[in-house]
């Protein structure tokens, strides 16, 4: 069965929320709830209750990046200092920990920040091409619901949108 996209625009979050609840409850054949994307001009914390727990794994990138940065920093500095093992240090350590901690700390942060951003791009799917249906109104004041579903399910989905006062419905045939 060919897949199609449909985008509905709503005037407020309440209408969009009601439409999503109905779509989830309706159990429409040919429509998988995970293929629903909510688009909004601001972040709605309520979305998590609405769509169910969807993962955000940026924090694992952060942890990896911070550890990697810290280790890289420490071993870079220590490696450079270890070049002087043959020189007389007057009893001082070849690799002094307290001053090295400062740069290790900076590299810990640098790694954490850089890799978090990389994680953000990976997890959020950015940079991205425009999705098949997009309306500039979503970045202004309207809430959009984008659904990918079988062509057979479109009529029912469209009816749910219409019942919940969708301002505009756009459809496009998928591949």
């Amino acid at each position, binding site marked *: 069965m060919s897949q199609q996209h449909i985008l509905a625009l709503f005037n407020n979050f309440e209408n969009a929320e009601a439409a999503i609840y109905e779509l989830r409850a309706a159990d429409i054949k040919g429509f998988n709830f995970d293929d629903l*994307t*909510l*688009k*909004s*001009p*601001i*972040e*709605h914390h309520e*979305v*998590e209750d609405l*769509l169910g727990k*969807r993962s*955000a794994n*940026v*924090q694992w990138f*952060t942890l990896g990046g911070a550890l990697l940065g810290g280790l890289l920093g420490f071993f*870079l*500095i220590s490696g*450079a*200092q270890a*070049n002087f093992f043959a020189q007389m240090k007057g009893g001082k350590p070849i690799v*002094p920990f307290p*001053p*090295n901690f*400062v*740069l290790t*700390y*900076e*590299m810990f*942060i*640098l790694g*954490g*920040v*850089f890799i*978090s*951003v990389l*994680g*953000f*791009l990976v*997890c*959020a*799917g*950015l*940079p*991205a*091409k*425009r*999705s098949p249906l*997009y309306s*500039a109104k*979503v*970045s*202004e*004041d309207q809430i959009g619901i*984008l659904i990918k579903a079988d062509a057979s399910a479109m009529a029912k989905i469209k009816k749910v949108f219409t019942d919940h006062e969708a301002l505009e419905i756009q459809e496009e045939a998928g591949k």
Partner: protein
Amino acid sequence: MEKDISESIAWAKINGDVLKSLEAPRKLYWVILVAALTLFGVGLGCEVYQYQIGMGVANLNNPHVWGLYIATFIFWIGMSHSGTLLSAILHLMHADWRKPIYRFAEAMTTFSLMTAGLFVMVHLGRLWQFYYSVPYPNERGLWPNFQSPLLWDAMAIFTYLSSSVIFLFIGMIPDLAICRDHLHEGWRKKLYTILSLGWEGTDRQWRNFRVTYLTVACFLIPLAVSVHSIVASDFAMSQQPGWHVTSFPPYFVAGALYSGCAAIITLFIILRYVFRFEEYMTLPILKKVARLTFAISMVWTYLNAIEFAAVWYSHDQAAKDVLLQKAMGPYAPFWWMMIFCGSVVPLMLAVKRFQTNIPVLFAVSLLLNLGMWLERWMIVAPTFSHGYYPWTWDGFQWPSWVQWGMVFGSFGWFTLLFMLFCKIFPSVSMYEVKEMVYHRSLASKKNELAEKGAH
């Protein structure tokens, strides 16, 4: 109680007002831009002259090896802390009044750091020797000294600058998408299309955006503290009288937040007028910033007193002599001016009617930053003119016009970058202002319902 922002502003109007600021500012914008360009030209001319003739023209010589360049370097590093305070600390504390003003504070952070970085180069004179502060071995395989605070400084500033740019950019992505969607065709639209990375405001994007923004904010707070502590270590880890003080790192951090807050007031007032942001940069928000500045000014005053007391009771005669020289020697007018601008002038911010008086606040904020700039000069110069050896006791060495030209030029450079940024990128965060309006209108609806229920 006055509201920080009106809950009835339509979201489309928020977009419209902010996007208008990218197109048609008031005439004052162009006046500021030309003035900034002129000042920058003066600074550039001084740098070219110094580069051609040599460092002698700066009148930097033994014992005054660090002059206005290093003092102004610290000033600009300090200025950069405002963005972190408003964006990261207040973000973690859920202070939503920061939302209309944090973007320009973040931009301030970035451009202050860029300006500060220039002073390192200017101070070196031989620009190509900058690589000595980079963790890269020379032709003999010798690495720089990783135990030197100067090297820590280079690394800390690089980390802070790159993280601040990233923080500014990440926070701006949803707004760049708005610009992409609503501006006419042209080079700007192409720029926003590239920079917005295809943002569409999907639940997946927002979810990951929130986590990333929070994470980077969490990293930025200790980073900002470490940066200025390390700058303080440039002084405190030396044996010079007047610098070898334990309280220097917190003193520097407090001073940084202080000058940053004062600069926020100055730029708040300018942007509010120039871009017609009266509905977003409101007087109740200005009042909060003024109160915050007052609180930090008192912390700074306290730490100043601690520093003086520590020197006075430490029985370190050389440090004591430096302090006495500051108060009664040739630097006395500047030192007392610093005390007046930094500790007495902010008392005006405690007076309620001045907290929303724009002309008074503008003048106060400029005086505060004058005081903070003098503070940095008073840290650097007097110690050099009264060190441990009598041959250093030459009293006073007035900086040459080249040094002054470079200092004024740095203000021009900063203003130029900042004003160009505000004209090219939205200086008010549209999506965060919408969030603020949305959450406040929800809260007031709840209150209304609760009141109806009570009746």
